[in-house]
C-alpha cells in the first residue's frame, strides 16, 4: 500500500492562493495562535506535567511501590479485563451496525443511527443507573438474578456491561462515513465473481476499512480504560475486587495518598499519550483511505 499515490485534494498551489485570499493580517494571526497555545498550555500540558511531577514527587521507590500495591494491581487487572471484553465486542457490534447503515437502505435506519449515538448523548452516570435499575437488587431482573445467585451490579459483569455501553459508538461512528463513501460496487463485483458473503467481507470490505476500524478501536479502548462515571455507579467500589484504575485513583486521592493516586493516574496519562500517538498515525492513514475513496467516487461522477 505504501506506494499508492493519492490524487485527491487540492494542489498545493490552489491551496496557497486560497490561503492568501482568505488570510488574516499577521497581528490577528499571532493573537489567535497565541490564545490557542495559551489555552492548550493551561488546560492540557500543565495538568499533564503535574500528574507526572506529583507521581514522582516522593521518588521512584514510592512510585513503584504504589503501583505494586495489591489493590492497585487488582484495579489494573480489572481495567484490562473490562477493556479486553468490551473492545472486541464493540468491534463486532460496531462493524455490524456500520455495515448495515453504510451499505443498505432499510426502514428505521435513522433510528438506528440515533440509538448508536445514545451513549454519547446520555450522561455516563445515567448509563450506570440504567444497569442498576435493571439488574440491581430492587431492579427489574434483580429478584430473578438473586434467586439464581447471579451478581451483576457491584461485580465485574456490571462493570463490563457499563463499559460496553459507553464505548459502543466509537467503532460504528468511525466506519459509517467510510463505508458510505465507498459505496457497494466492489462488493457487487466480488459477488458477481463468485465470492461468498464472508469472502467478500474479509477479502474486499475489511481491507478497505482497516485503518478507520483501527482508529475506532483505539478510541474505544482509550475510553474503555478511562471510563469513570458509569463504572462508578455500578462498581460499588470494593477495593481489590470491583475497582478499576480511574476509581482506584479517586479512592487514593480521597484518602490523601496523593503520590499513589498520581502514580496510578500517570499510567492512565501514559495510556492517553500512547493512544494519541497511535491515533495520529492511524488517523493519517485513515484519512488517506477516505480521500482515496472520495477520489474514486468523484472520478465516477465526472461521467
Amino acid at each position: 500500500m505504501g506506494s499508492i499515490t493519492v490524487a485527491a485534494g487540492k494542489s498545493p498551489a490552489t491551496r496557497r492562493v486560497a490561503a492568501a485570499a482568505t488570510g488574516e493580517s499577521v497581528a490577528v494571526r499571532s493573537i489567535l495562535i497565541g490564545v490557542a497555545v495559551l489555552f492548550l498550555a493551561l488546560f492540557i500540558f500543565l495538568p499533564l506535567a503535574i500528574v507526572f511531577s506529583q507521581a514522582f514527587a516522593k521518588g521512584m521507590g514510592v512510585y513503584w511501590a504504589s503501583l505494586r500495591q495489591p489493590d492497585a494491581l487488582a484495579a489494573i487487572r480489572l481495567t484490562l479485563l473490562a477493556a479486553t471484553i468490551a473492545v472486541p465486542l464493540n468491534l463486532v457490534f460496531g462493524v455490524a451496525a456500520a455495515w448495515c447503515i453504510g451499505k443498505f437502505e432499510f426502514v428505521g435506519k435513522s433510528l438506528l443511527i440515533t440509538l448508536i449515538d445514545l451513549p454519547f448523548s446520555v450522561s455516563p452516570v445515567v448509563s450506570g443507573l440504567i444497569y442498576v435499575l435493571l439488574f440491581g437488587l430492587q431492579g427489574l431482573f434483580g429478584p430473578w438474578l438473586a434467586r439464581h445467585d447471579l451478581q451483576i451490579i457491584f461485580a465485574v459483569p456490571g462493570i463490563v456491561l457499563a463499559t460496553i455501553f459507553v464505548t459502543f459508538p466509537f467503532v460504528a461512528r468511525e466506519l459509517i462515513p467510510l463505508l458510505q463513501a465507498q459505496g457497494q460496487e466492489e462488493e457487487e463485483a466480488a459477488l458477481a465473481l463468485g465470492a461468498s458473503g464472508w469472502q467478500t467481507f474479509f477479502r474486499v470490505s475489511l481491507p478497505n476499512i482497516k485503518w478507520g476500524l483501527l482508529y475506532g478501536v483505539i478510541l474505544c479502548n482509550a475510553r474503555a480504560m478511562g471510563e469513570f462515571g458509569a463504572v462508578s455507579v455500578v462498581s460499588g467500589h470494593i477495593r481489590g475486587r470491583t475497582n478499576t484504575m480511574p476509581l482506584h485513583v479517586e479512592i487514593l486521592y480521597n484518602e490523601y495518598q496523593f503520590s499513589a493516586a498520581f502514580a496510578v493516574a500517570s499510567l492512565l496519562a501514559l495510556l492517553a499519550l500512547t493512544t494519541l500517538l497511535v491515533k495520529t498515525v492511524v488517523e493519517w492513514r485513515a484519512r488517506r483511505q477516505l480521500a482515496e475513496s472520495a477520489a474514486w467516487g468523484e472520478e465516477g461522477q465526472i461521467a
Partner: protein
Amino acid sequence: MSIEAKEITKKFGQFTALEHVDLKIPSGELVALLGPSGSGKTTLLRIIAGLEFADSGTILFDGEDTTHRNARDRRVGFVFQHYALFRHMTVFENIAFGLKVRPRNVRPSKEQIHAKVHELLGLIQLKNLAGRYPSQLSGGQRQRVALARALAVEPSVLLLDEPFGSLDAKVRLELRRWLRQLHDEVHITSVFVTHDQEEALEVSDRVAVMNEGRIEQVGTPDDVYHRPITPFVYNFLGNVNLFHGRIDEETSIQEGATGDPVYVRPHLLEIHRQPNRGGGHFRATIKHINSAGPLVKIEALSEWGDPVQVELSQEKFRELQLTKEETVFIIPKELKVFQKKAI
C-alpha cells in the same frame, strides 16, 4: 448462452424503471442496450446479472429459469461503469480474485491461476503492469483490467454497464474497437449498456433502443438507423429536424397545417439558390454556419419560424458560397412520418 427476459417489470418506489420488457439475446451475439439516462437500461442489465431482482417477470439463460438465482450462481461477467476494481489489490490480484475465491475442490492450482492471469494480461496488453495498484492506472487501463477480471472466471455471459462512459473520447474509440475485436475472438454472449448511439451502432450486432422503461425497437444497427419504427428511435439515433406540417405532393411541407409531425435528418436536406420547379421546397434564412469538421452545419430559420438544421459537404458548401442572413430554398430528400397511434 442465450438470454431471454420475459415480461420484466421493476419499480423503485413510485418510479417505474422497467415495464413489461421482453428481450431475446441469441447465443454469441453482442447486443447494445441503448437509451437516455433513466430509460431503464442499466436496471435491465443488473436484473440479467442477478444484482437486482425484478418485481415480476422471468430471466432465462439457455431456456433455464434463473430468475431467483443471485449473481454468484449465474456465472456472469459484469463490468462496472466505474470499474469497481479492488483498490487494495494489485492488477494481478484483481484478475485472479474470481479464481481464488472458488471452493477448494474446483479451485485451480496456483500455477494454473498464474498462467490464466498472464494470458489475460496479454489479452488486455498490460503484461508489464501486473504489480500496479488500480490508483496507479489510467482510466482506460482500469477498464481493461475490469474486463480481464470479469473474463477470468470464464463467464457464460459478459455484461458491461456503460463500459466506456467515464473515458475520454479518444480512449473510448480505441477501447470500443478493441471490445469488438475481442468479441469476434471470444464469441461470448455480451450485453452492453450505453447512451451513446454512435457507440451502439458501431460495436454491436444488434441494438435494443430503450425509452422510459420500455424497449422501443430491437434490430441490427442498420435496421434501427434506417428503418426506425417509432419517432423516439428516429430522434435518438442521430440529429433530426421536426416539422409540424402536412405533406403535399409527396415531399412538400405546408406551413401551419395540422397533421402528424414530419422528421428529416439534417443531411437529407438540400440547399438550393433557386426554387425547385417541381415544388416541394421551402424558404429559409441562414442564421449560423459552422464549417469546422467533415461536414458543414448550418442553422436556419424556416419561413414559418421553425429552426432547421442542415448538414452538407464542404464541397457543396464551397460551391454554394452561402453567407449568413441569406435566404435559400431547402428541399427535403427524404421525409419520415409516424402515424399517430389511435388512442
